[in-house]
């Protein structure tokens, strides 16, 4: 007979119930929960715009909304999803919650800065939401000049200010993680005993810290050009619009690695835990995260092959762009090899991990088409690109986030969710996703450009398929809200380690104490060792 598990008496969630104890907290776990709620709201807002887009695109004519409204839909969808959902998601929720316990620390190095970064995120969100309510913005999330500086008559400046401010939230999170990982590791927690989740966040933080300031200054330049009439990118005032693209993409390409690297970290944890086996090629996976971060900074102009850069420059950037594919491939192969002679089970987090593997592989492989110069000329700015990045951002990053959420939910809340409904949701997301985005590769190669409100009739069938898939995808995302909320009250008590995973975070109670550990742990074993987990927890079935 197993002892009935109970929610511990004292934990971080009941350590103070007032609003002030939450809004003025320095506890990284409470901050993570507040981020979770905030980005979830943003996700569904961005999703609403996506619904608007797919509804319009179900018919070839622009008959659902006006062209201006549609242009605002895709712009707001992009701005919210990139800056207010994807970039914070895993780092601000899972990273914030888990990095201190994973390294044996009580908190991040700078808890107050962590809180400030949350406030900054909220303030940035307020500016952007204001811009939406005040009539929206229609420049595309890429804000290309001169349209954004002089052509558009929508709320560019408030949106730009919101993004600028939110960027500092990202920078401070990255700064905090870097210092924490360097200086707060428990005794015996050497670099090569760190979970790969931590390596991934370290690499992500490097990108956040080095790349985000560049988009910040680019936004400043755009802002002074638009608001004060300075000339920097406007040809009518002697400027070069292509310079904007260079500066913008210098950040925004590494930004996509901010979005995917943490998910790659989650993936390592899931694959290892649910095959009860150490990650194959640990150091290679760890270094590949760093390699992706570094190479990610030298490929930006692959977004500009047809923007008027020289043939020579295009060749250089194409060559370098292939380099960034290799570390990603190495990871995929290492995860696959991890499964060999494993002891595999398919709880929901593993379903997400499998889905991630397939979709990230496809997304990454389609990047090869885009890096290939001769092809990119044809597919640039078509739905082929849209499909590529959604495979990585949604099929990769969001599935990584969902997998991580399902994996660590018991740790964060002390409760298990319904395994049945979570599996249904995972499958709906996988199927819906593919039906939504695979046809977009086809219609993109056919020539359908991006950001089109109406399109020639012959593209309709593929667009209808895509819109149909989006319905299933949306339902798949809505379901977790229900069963997660339900689990908070009615879910089975999880106990400290329901998955029998390795990792210091599973040594804590669920939900954890505010100070994480009663005594600082001392680490004397290698990562991902399951023999000890089995031997210590025989009492759990």
């Amino acid at each position, binding site marked *: 007979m197993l002892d009935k598990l109970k929610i511990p008496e004292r934990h971080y969630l009941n350590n103070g119930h007032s609003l002030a104890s939450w809004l003025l907290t320095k506890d990284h776990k409470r901050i993570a929960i507040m981020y979770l709620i905030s980005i979830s709201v943003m996700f569904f807002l961005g999703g609403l715009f996506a619904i608007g887009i797919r509804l319009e695109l179900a018919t070839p004519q622009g008959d659902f909304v006006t062209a201006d409204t549609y242009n605002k839909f895709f712009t707001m969808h992009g701005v919210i999803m990139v800056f207010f959902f994807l970039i914070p998601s895993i780092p601000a929720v899972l990273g914030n919650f888990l990095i201190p316990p994973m390294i044996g620390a009580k908190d991040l*190095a700078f808890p107050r800065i962590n809180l400030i970064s949350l406030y900054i995120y909220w303030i940035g969100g307020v500016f952007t939401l204001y811009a939406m309510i005040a009539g929206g913005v229609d420049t595309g999330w890429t804000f290309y000049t001169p349209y954004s500086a002089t052509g558009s008559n929508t709320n560019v400046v408030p949106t730009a200010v919101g993004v600028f401010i939110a960027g500092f939230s990202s920078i401070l999170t990255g700064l905090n993680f870097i210092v924490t990982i360097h200086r707060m590791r428990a005794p015996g927690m050497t670099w090569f005993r760190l979970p790969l989740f931590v390596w991934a966040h370290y690499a992500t933080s490097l990108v956040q810290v080095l790349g*985000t300031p560049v988009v910040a200054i680019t936004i400043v330049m755009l802002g002074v050009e638009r608001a004060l009439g300075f000339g920097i990118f406007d040809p009518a005032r002697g400027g070069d619009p292509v310079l904007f693209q260079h500066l913008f993409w210098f950040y925004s390409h590494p930004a996509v690695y901010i979005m995917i690297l943490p998910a790659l970290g989650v993936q390592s944890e899931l694959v290892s835990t649910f095959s009860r086996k150490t990650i194959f090629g640990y150091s290679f996976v760890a270094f590949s995260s760093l390699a992706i971060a570094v190479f990610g900074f030298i490929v930006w102009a692959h977004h500009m092959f047809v923007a008027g850069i020289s043939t020579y420059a295009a060749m250089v950037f194409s060559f370098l762009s292939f380099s960034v594919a290799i570390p990603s491939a190495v990871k995929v192969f290492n995860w696959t090899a991890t499964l060999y002679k494993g002891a595999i089970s398919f709880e929901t987090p593993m379903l997400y991990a499998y889905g991630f593997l397939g979709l990230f592989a496809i997304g990454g492989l389609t990047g090869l088409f885009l890096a290939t110069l001769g092809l990119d000329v044809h597919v640039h700015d078509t739905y082929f690109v849209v499909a590529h990045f959604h495979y990585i951002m949604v099929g990769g990053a969001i599935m990584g986030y969902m997998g991580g959420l399902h994996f660590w939910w018991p740790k964060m809340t002390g409760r298990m969710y319904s395994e049945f409904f979570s599996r249904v949701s995972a499958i709906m997301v996988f199927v819906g996703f593919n039906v939504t985005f695979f046809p977009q590769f086809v219609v993109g190669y056919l020539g359908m450009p991006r950001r089109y409100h109406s399109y020639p009739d012959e593209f309709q069938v593929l667009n209808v398929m895509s819109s149909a898939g989006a319905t299933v995808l949306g339902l798949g995302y809505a379901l977790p809200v229900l069963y997660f909320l339900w689990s908070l009250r009615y879910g089975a008590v999880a106990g400290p380690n329901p998955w029998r995973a*390795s990792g210091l975070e599973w040594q804590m109670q669920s939900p954890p104490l505010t100070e994480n550990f009663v*005594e*600082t742990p001392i680490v004397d074993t290698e990562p991902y060792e399951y023999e000890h987990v089995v031997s210590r927890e025989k009492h759990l079935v």
Partner: protein
Amino acid sequence: MSNAVVHADIHGQAHAAHHPALRHHFDTMGQQKEAAVIGMWVFLLTEILFFGGLFAAYMVYRVWYFDAFAEASRSLEIFWGALNTAVLIGSSLTMAMAVRGAQTNKRTATINWLILTMLLGCVFLGVKVIEYAEKIEHHHVPGFNYQWAPAHEAAPAAEGVAAEGHRKLSLTPEQLQLMTQIYFSLYFTMTGLHALHMIVGIGLMSVITWMTWKGKFDREYYTPVEMSGLYWHFVDIVWIFLFPLLYLVERHT
């Protein structure tokens, strides 16, 4: 990571005698200080990238529009720029002295040096006000009736003969108007951003001064003074780059 959680009691041992400034998530003052130092350097790295974007834009246009940039640069007064450079370098010296004072627990000296640093910072900002006023007067602010007419006219060169040392410009007035406007857009953005950082620095110094006066620092703990010093030195270094880039274009004649 399955391991035996050994009951280490590092925190317990130090608890009886820890410095009041030791935050509870750190084990020792040394660890706390190291974290602060790494944190501040990482932050300064982000500032380098922040200004770096502007510098990159400036360099691109300077290469493309060199002659116009040289002309525009010559309209700036070297006197004020050099004075500001000296003022800032001096303020870095006073700042270093303030850190030294905090390190040696000399409260009054520290406060005096900090106040001196802030004063020098204000002098810098005052000079910038003078310079900006002059630019406004000459309509050299882009977007606000910008009109390029050089503030300092060399005697018009005879056709085909360059004024001594100056290459004869082959730009039309329209081109000059556009290109110098780019220069001034960047000039105001770069110096404006720098001035903003100065203002933040002065604000930071006033907080540090107040904390020093309140007796918050001693030999074991003066990290905020030191970190603010780092920030101040950084703002100084940015100006060291701005001055030659903006003021000293083709001045060798």
